[in-house]
Structures are given as C-alpha cells and as structure tokens.
C-alpha cells in the first residue's frame, strides 16, 4: 500500500474545558523518520497518548494503515503493529533484562494465556530475545535486574521492548532525555539502525538529534501543527523560527 501509514484527521482532545489538541491533521509516509517538535506543553505527549490508545480522542480520526484506531485499547493498537516507548522509563524493574525483553517478544507468539508449555521450550522466543539484546548491545547485561541498569541502558532496553513485536510504526517519546553526549550519539546510531524498514515518529527536544535523524519534521504549537516539511524547509520557515526555533537559538 502506498498511502500514508498513519493519518490524523481533525484530531481534538480536551480535558474538561481545556483543549490540548486543537484539530491536528498529519500524514506519516511509510518508511520515513518523522520528528515531532514543539515547546513544552504543546501537546506532543498527548498526541502520542492518543495515537497509542492511552487516551481516547474527543473528536477527529486516527487511521493506521487505512483503518480507524482512535479509542481502541493500547493492546489492540499494539497488535496491529504500532508500538511506542515512554518518556519516563517504563520497564519491569525487578525482573532481569532478559525477562523484560522476553515478555515483549512472547506477545507476537500469541501465548498470553498459555499455561501448559514451558516458556523456555517455546521455539524462537529465546533466540529472538537474545538477538534483540545483542542488537541494542545489552547482551552483557542479560541477567542484571532491569531496575539496576544505568539510565541509558534502561532507555536502550525500552527501545528493544518497543521493537520486540516487530512493529511497522514506532513512536519514541524523548528517547534521549537526560543522556550525556556520548550516550546520545550512541542512541541516535541505534535508532537509525533498528528503524531500518520501519516508520518512526519521534518526539525530541535536542535539535541536533532532530535534524540529524529526521526525514521530515512537524512543529506542534498550542495543540496545532503549524508546519510540516523537510529539515531545511523547517529551518527556514518564518513561522517556526518565530514560534519555536527563535527561543531555542540561544541554547
């Protein structure tokens, strides 16, 4: 299929009288890496919550591969091939790294209610888990408790868990927040590598990362997309410079 993989049409979300998302229209093209930027409180995370099923939209439509998914449960949306990570690290802290990832990998084997087979005898689960661990360079931390990993290792684990269901579309919510420069470089390379052949939507505050990684950028201000385009177009967009990049220029 050649149409957009994700379409937002007139999407609105209100909390009581406060409208956070005020009519967003956005098309995400299959295979692109799309960055969502905007000042604090613009509604970036809310938009992710709407797309991933954490919140139900007040109005408007969300189409994933042409099918409406607005208001579906997070589990159903995930099973259609749309996975997300979280801004605040969201893992299973008292389980081992391997166990964390195995829970994520098991899902696509359709074994959630299975109580008659041993998990270590399921064909493919261990291999896929090990392969993912190696891919995010956590193989050495196989038996460590996830809660005892360093911050950036936890972020890598979070990315691996997001990838585990082999999604077509990945939403990453500020994967680099709070990282050092080396960790950021490492994570950018990692994201570039693991999103080959998939579509990525990423929320990120670090402009260097955004311009290095994204094929297209959308700017969200006060719940509305004020511009969408290539990094160059966004950099030179008068409205964006005024509303957003102008403030960032000093930092």
């Amino acid at each position, binding site marked *: 299929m050649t149409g957009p993989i994700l379409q937002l049409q007139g999407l609105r979300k209100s909390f009581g009288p406060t409208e956070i998302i005020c009519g967003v229209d956005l098309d995400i093209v299959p295979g692109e890496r799309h960055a969502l930027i905007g000042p604090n409180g613009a509604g970036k995370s809310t938009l992710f919550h709407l797309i*991933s099923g*954490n919140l139900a939209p007040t109005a408007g439509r969300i189409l994933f591969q042409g099918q409406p998914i607005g208001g579906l*449960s*997070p*589990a159903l949306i*995930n*099973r259609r091939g749309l*996975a*997300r990570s*979280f801004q605040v690290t*969201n*893992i*299973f*802290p*008292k*389980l*081992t790294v*391997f*166990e964390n990832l*195995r*829970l*994520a990998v*098991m*899902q*696509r*084997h359709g*074994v*959630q*209610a*299975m*109580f*008659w*087979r*041993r*998990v*270590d005898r*399921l064909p493919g689960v261990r291999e896929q888990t090990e392969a993912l661990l190696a891919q995010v360079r956590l193989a050495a931390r196989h*038996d460590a*408790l996830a809660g005892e990993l360093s911050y950036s290792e936890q972020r890598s684990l979070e990315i691996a*868990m997001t990838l*585990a*269901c082999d999604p077509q579309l990945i939403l990453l919510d500020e994967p680099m927040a709070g990282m050092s420069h080396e960790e950021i470089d490492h994570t950018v390379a990692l994201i570039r590598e693991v999103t080959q052949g998939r579509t990525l939507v990423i929320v990120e505050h670090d402009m260097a990362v955004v311009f290095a990684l994204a094929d297209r950028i959308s700017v969200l201000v006060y719940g509305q997309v004020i511009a969408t385009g290539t990094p160059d177009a966004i950099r030179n967009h008068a409205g964006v410079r005024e509303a957003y990049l102008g403030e960032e220029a000093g930092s």
Partner: protein
Amino acid sequence: MTRGLGGAAARGIALPGLVAALAGLALLLALPVLLSASLLNAAIQMLIAALFACAFNLLCGQGGMLSFGHSAYFGVGVFATVHAMNALAGQGLLPTPLLPVVGALAGMVFGAIAGWFATQRTGTYFAMITLALAELVHALAPHIKGVFGGESGVSAMRMPAWGFSFGEGRHLYYMTLFWVLLALLLLYGYTRTPLGRLTLGLRENSHRLRFLGYNTHLLAVLVFTVSSMFSGLAGGLQAVNNELGNYVVFDANLSSSVVLNSYIGGVNMFLGPALGAALMTFFGLAVSDLTRSWLLYQGILFVVVMLFMPTGLAGLAQTWALARRRCGAQRLLPLVGAWLVALALLSLGTVFAIELLQQLFSTDYRAGVQAGAPWPAVRQFGRSWAPGAVTTWLVPLVLLATGTPLARWAGQRWAAALDADQGQDAPR
C-alpha cells in the same frame, strides 16, 4: 543475589536443591510411622494450610494482587465437596480420593466470576472488592440453610474406595499429601509457563504490558482463577478430612490468616508461604491448649517479621547464604548464636508478661479478688507468682532488658562484618 522468583525459576534445579527436595519428600512419606494420630492430624492441617497459602501467593506474591477475601474460594471448595460427598456417596466416577477435584472446579468457577469483577481495579480497590465479595458470601451463608446448613453445618460421610477405608489417619494423610504435592508441582510448573512469566509482569508493571499488546484484564482474571482453583482444592481436602462444611470457613479470620502466614513465610519465594502457613498452623494447634492469647502472638509475630525481616522466614535463608559467602561462617556463627539467645530472652519475657497480664485481667481471676486482701497468686511456668511481689515483675523486665541490647549488639556487629567485607570481594 536476591533475584526473587524470576531468577530462581529461570535457573534449573541445582543438585543440592534436588537432594534437599528428596530428603523432604522421604520425611513427608515417613511421617505416619513417626507421628501419633493427633500429630498426624496436625500434619494434615498443615499441608492444607500450606497449599492454601501457596495458592493465595500466586495472586498476591507473584501477581501483585492482594486479596483480603480468599476464604471465599476455600469455603466454596469445602461446600462443593461436602455436597458432592452426599450426592454421590463416594460411588461412580467420584470415589473419595477424587472428591477434592470438585472443590477445585467450584473454586475455579467462582473465582472466574469474582475475579472478573475484582480485577477491574488494582491496588487498594482490588483488595476492597475481594473483601466485599467475601463478606457478601459470609453474610449470605447463614441465611441459606439449604446449601450451607446453618449453625450445625452440612456433614457428610467418607466412603471406602480403592481398597482403602479412609477411616484411619494414615489413609487421609497420604491422600492429602498426594494432592498437596501434585498441586505444588503444578503451581511451580505454572511459574515457568508464559502465563506464569506474565503474572510477574502484571505485578511489576501492568501498564507496560498493555502497550506490549497484552490484555491485562484477561491475564488478571486467569491468574485469579488459577489461584481460586487451588484454594478450592485446599477447601475440598479439608472437607474430605473433616466430613463437615460449616459457614465459619467464610469468616474473615481465615482470609486474614492466609495473608499473615504468607508474609511471615515470605511472599518472594515459591515455598515461603507454605513454610509460613505450616509453621503458624502448627503453633496455632500446639499453643491453643496452653494460651488464650494465640491471636495476639500471631499478630506480634507478623509485626516483628515485617519490621525486622521483611522478606519473611524464607528470606532468612537467603540472607544467611549471602552473608556467609561474603564473610565466612566462622565470623558469623557467634553472632547468630548471640542473636538466638537474644531471641529466646525476648520471647520468654514477652510470653511471661502477656500470660501474667492475661491471667490477672481474666474474669475468673477478678472474681477471686477480695477487697482489702492482697491479690491471690497466679500459677505460671510451674510456679506461683504473687502479683504484689517485685520479683514477679522483675522477671519479664530483666529478660527484656537483657535481650534487647543483646539483639541490637548482634545486629550492629552483623552489619559491621558485612560492611568491613564490602571492599574486598563483594560480588556485584
């Protein structure tokens, strides 16, 4: 390394573990030869309590769902089995040894329905719903005489089957042992299945599970159902043993003691709750003839365990193994000795004070007190103690006053020994 259930289940069973398991099994099989009839009966009750606690812990310790109303599923198992005994008279497809299956099925069905409602919420709200459901059954049961038999309960007869009379304790013991061991094996096997692993995920972070594509409500209902099924099996075993179902099994007392027993034993280890329940049941039976304050002791024990060893009795073994690897047994054994002496002193002092006060406040004693005359002496530990005498009160005070600093000293030296070793060969 404390890796809890996750790690323990992921590793295979090591050789020393296998030897210990076989020795334990041999001991359990030999018990009817070694024990008197009344002790064998106590052993049966301990086995049933151990199974009930493990079934409860599947929900609480592994699934992170603290149920305050688990007596409901146990009780449903009891009554279903009693009625099956009466209806079938041990004939046909359900001879006596297979009767507990009825309890398990009833627990499973009732658990699936109750669980569907209770697991709509988590945390405190979940606990409140389970409590409310259990209280509902508890309040209804006395009024439905046809099913629950009113004050006198429903009695039934155990019939001989497969060449066993089931009139002797031995037969009942082996039947109970078989079912309890089978159920524990199944429950342990469960922890290694995909659903078993997801149960831990449910406890750790059910929000994340949803975004990994899992239907967490369905998972929680399944965990609840499995837990209720094994609780019902424990109830069924009790029904076959007692030949009686009485609505007092729905009492909140049973629900709360399974919570206390599991935590005393240690909810983070698979057999911790079984250990706690077996020990507490044994003490309950042994001590109930000697004191009227058993519930108070149970409460004190729970508070002490929670304050000073939050991982429970089973956690002590882990703590010891870890410390021994770091410092060696020679340096730690004197401290353990001191700690045990302190424990004995503190226990004696507490028991002495409680029993003394309990006697002095009892209505029997108050009736014997005459105005103007000194209070009569009470008998305790084979001696009489005058309430007016200084020595009577000095005994518990001295015991507590020597035990407390000794316990503190041992605790401090223990911590210091571990600290001193931190730099040398501390495993990660």
